[in-house]
C-alpha cells in the first residue's frame, strides 16, 4: 500500500514535469518567435527586451532556460507578467485558486449527490413515470448551456425577483472568502454551484442509471434477491457498489478539468475571478508567464484528481487491488 502510494506520487511528479517541459517548449522554443519580446509585451522598448533576454537566460541553451524558468516559478516565485503592469504571476494564481476550488468543490458535492439520486431512483423505478420524468429532466439539464442558464438565474435572482422572498437573500455577484464570511461565501456561491452542477447531474444520473440497469442483469443481483434482501439493500449494497467505477472515472476527469480552468463560463457569468478567467485573460493578452503558471497549475489538479480516483477505485473495487 505504501509503495503503491509512493509509486503513484512519483508518477504524478513525472507527469507534471513532462507537462511543464511541453508547455515550456511550445511557448518559449517555438522557432521564429522571440520569447524575450513576447514576455516583455507588445510595446516594449529594445532595452526592456534585451533586459528580459538576459534575466530569463534566453541567450543560453534550452535546458538552462527551462531550469531558470522553473526556478523563477516555484523557488523564487518571481515571475512577472510584463503585459499586466509587471504584476507577479504566482500571487494572482494563488488568489484565484480558492475561488475556483470553492466553486468546483461545492458544485461537485451537488452533482455527486444529485447524480447518485437521479441514477438510483430512476433505475429503481425503471420504466415507470418517475424514471421517464427524471430522464427527461436530466436530458434538459445536459442540453442547457451553463452561460445561458447562469444568466437566467442571475436575471431571476438579481433583478426580476430579487425583491421577493424567494431571492431577497441573494447577495450581489462576486466572491466572499470563506475565512472571512462563511455565510456570505455560501450565499454567493449557492446559485453558481447549482448552475454548474446541473449539466453534470444530468450526465451522471443518466450514465449511472444505464450502469445500474445493466447491473440488474447480473447473476449476483439474482443471488442477492434470492437471499431475501430488501430491494433497497440489493440496490445500494450490491448493484450500486458494482456500478460506481464509470461514475468515479468521469468524476476524476471532470473535476480535474474544471478546477484547472474549465469552469470559465460559470466564473464569468457570476463575476468570480477564478482560474478560468485568469487563464482566459492571459491567453487574450498572450501573457506567457501567466499562461505558463496557469497551465502548470491546471495540470497539477488534473493529475491529482486522477491519482485520487485511482485510490478510490482500489477502495471501491477489490479486484483492482491486485493490479
Amino acid at each position, binding site marked *: 500500500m505504501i509503495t503503491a502510494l509512493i509509486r503513484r506520487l512519483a508518477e504524478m511528479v513525472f507527469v507534471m514535469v513532462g507537462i511543464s517541459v511541453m508547455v515550456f517548449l511550445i511557448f518559449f522554443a517555438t522557432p521564429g518567435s522571440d520569447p524575450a519580446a513576447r514576455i516583455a509585451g507588445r510595446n516594449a522598448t529594445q532595452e526592456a527586451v534585451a533586459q528580459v533576454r538576459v534575466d530569463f537566460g534566453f541567450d543560453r541553451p534550452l535546458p538552462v532556460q527551462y531550469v531558470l524558468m522553473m526556478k523563477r516559478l516555484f523557488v523564487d516565485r518571481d515571475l512577472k507578467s510584463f503585459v499586466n503592469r509587471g504584476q507577479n504571476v504566482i500571487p494572482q494564481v494563488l488568489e484565484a485558486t480558492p475561488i475556483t476550488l470553492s466553486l468546483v468543490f461545492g458544485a461537485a458535492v451537488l452533482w455527486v449527490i444529485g447524480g447518485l439520486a437521479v441514477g438510483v431512483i430512476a433505475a429503481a423505478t425503471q*420504466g415507470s413515470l418517475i424514471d421517464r420524468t427524471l430522464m427527461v429532466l436530466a436530458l434538459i439539464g445536459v442540453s442547457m448551456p451553463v452561460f445561458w442558464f447562469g444568466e437566467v438565474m442571475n436575471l431571476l435572482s438579481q433583478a426580476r425577483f430579487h425583491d421577493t422572498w424567494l431571492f431577497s437573500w441573494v447577495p450581489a455577484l462576486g466572491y466572499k472568502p470563506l475565512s472571512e464570511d462563511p455565510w456570505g461565501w455560501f450565499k454567493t456561491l449557492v446559485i453558481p454551484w447549482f448552475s454548474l452542477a446541473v449539466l453534470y447531474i444530468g450526465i451522471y444520473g443518466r450514465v449511472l442509471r444505464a450502469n445500474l440497469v445493466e447491473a440488474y442483469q447480473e447473476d*449476483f443481483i*439474482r443471488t442477492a434477491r434470492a*437471499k*431475501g*434482501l*430488501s*430491494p433497497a439493500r440489493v440496490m445500494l449494497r450490491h448493484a450500486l457498489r458494482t456500478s460506481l467505477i464509470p461514475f468515479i472515472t468521469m468524476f476524476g476527469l471532470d473535476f480535474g478539468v474544471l478546477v484547472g480552468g474549465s469552469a470559465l463560463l460559470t466564473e464569468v457569468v457570476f463575476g468570480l475571478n477564478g482560474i478560468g478567467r485568469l487563464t482566459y485573460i492571459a491567453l487574450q493578452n498572450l501573457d506567457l508567464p501567466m499562461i505558463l503558471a496557469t497551465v502548470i497549475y491546471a495540470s497539477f489538479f488534473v493529475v491529482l484528481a486522477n491519482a485520487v480516483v485511482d485510490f478510490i477505485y482500489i477502495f471501491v473495487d*477489490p479486484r483492482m487491488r491486485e493490479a
Partner: protein
Amino acid sequence: MTDPIRPALLDVDHLKVSFATDRGRVTAINDVSFRIDDGEFVAIVGESGSGKTVSLLSILGLTDRRTTFVEGTAAFRGRPILGLPDRELRRIRGKQIAFIPQDPLTALTPVHTIGWQIVEQIRTHETVSKEAAKKRAIELLDEVGLPNPAAAFGRYPHQLSGGMRQRAVIAMALSCNPALLVADEPTTALDVTVQAQVLDLLKRLRRDHGSAIILITHDMGVVAEVADRVMVMYAGRVIERGTAREIFAAPEHPYTWGLMASIPPVEGPRPHRLPSIPGTPPTPANIPPGCAFAPRCAHRFAPCAGLPPALSASGHDAFCFLDDNARAAGRAALFAAPETAA
C-alpha cells in the same frame, strides 16, 4: 388438525410462465405441476432451454415482474406464494427456500468478501450479533469443505477458484437452514472431481439438515447418482415423471430414452453432443403444436400432431401417445444399443 395429510413442502400446480418479447408473448413454461415433500431429493432434467431455471425462478418470484407473466399456483407448506407481496416473499426466500444459482463464477457480488455476504444473509433473517453470525459463517464454510475457512471468510470471490466459490455459494444458501434447497446445475461449471465432491456435499446436507433438495441438471449420470424422484422437462413441459428407480428401469418417453443413451460412459472420452437425439430443442417462440418433441422423435405417428393426455396425478407417467407395447419395444431397442456392452 382435521386434515390427516400434511401439506406438501412445495406444491406447484399448472404453472405457466410467459415472457413479453419483441415478437409478442411467448410461453416458456406450460402446465407444470409437481409436489415435493420434506427431505426429498428431486432432480429436474432436460436439455438447455427446456425451462428448468425459469420454472423455479418464477416460483421464487425472481423473474422480472415487468416482462414475465406467471400463472397457476404454488404453495409452500400450504401457503400460496405466487403473487405474494414482495415483503412477505422475502421472508421465505433465503430463509425457508434457498437458491443455489447456476454459475458460481458470477453468482457472488464481486465487491464484498465471501464472509460479508454470508453474514448479510444470516442477519437479514435472524437477529444475531455480528460476531455470532461470523462464527456461524466460518462453521458453514468449514462444513462445505473449504480449506482454511477463517481465511476464506475474508476473501473476495475473485480470489477463490470456481469450486471454492461454488462451495461458498452453497454455504451461503445453507446459512439459514432452509427447508428446501434449489440447486440450479451446481456442478456444470466445475471439473469432474469437484462435481463429485459437490454432489456428495448435497447428499450429506440432506442427511444432516434434513432439507429437501431440488437439483436441476442436464446430466442423467448425476441424476442416477443422487435423486429419489425425477422430472424430465422438454420445451417447457414435464414430459416424464417418476421415481429415479422407475425411470432408470423403464423410461417411457422417447426423449428420456435419448437422455439415457447419452449418459457418458464411466471411462473413455465424454461425447460432446447428445448422440441419440438428432436436432435441437425448440425455443419458446417456436414450440410446435401438439407434442413438442415430435419433430425430433423417431417414434412419431399421426396422433403426435395433437397434445398427449395430461400426466396422471401421481406415479410414473410420460407425456406421450405411445402405448405400453410401443414403449417396451422402444426401450428394448435402447438397451440393445452398444452401451450394454460397456
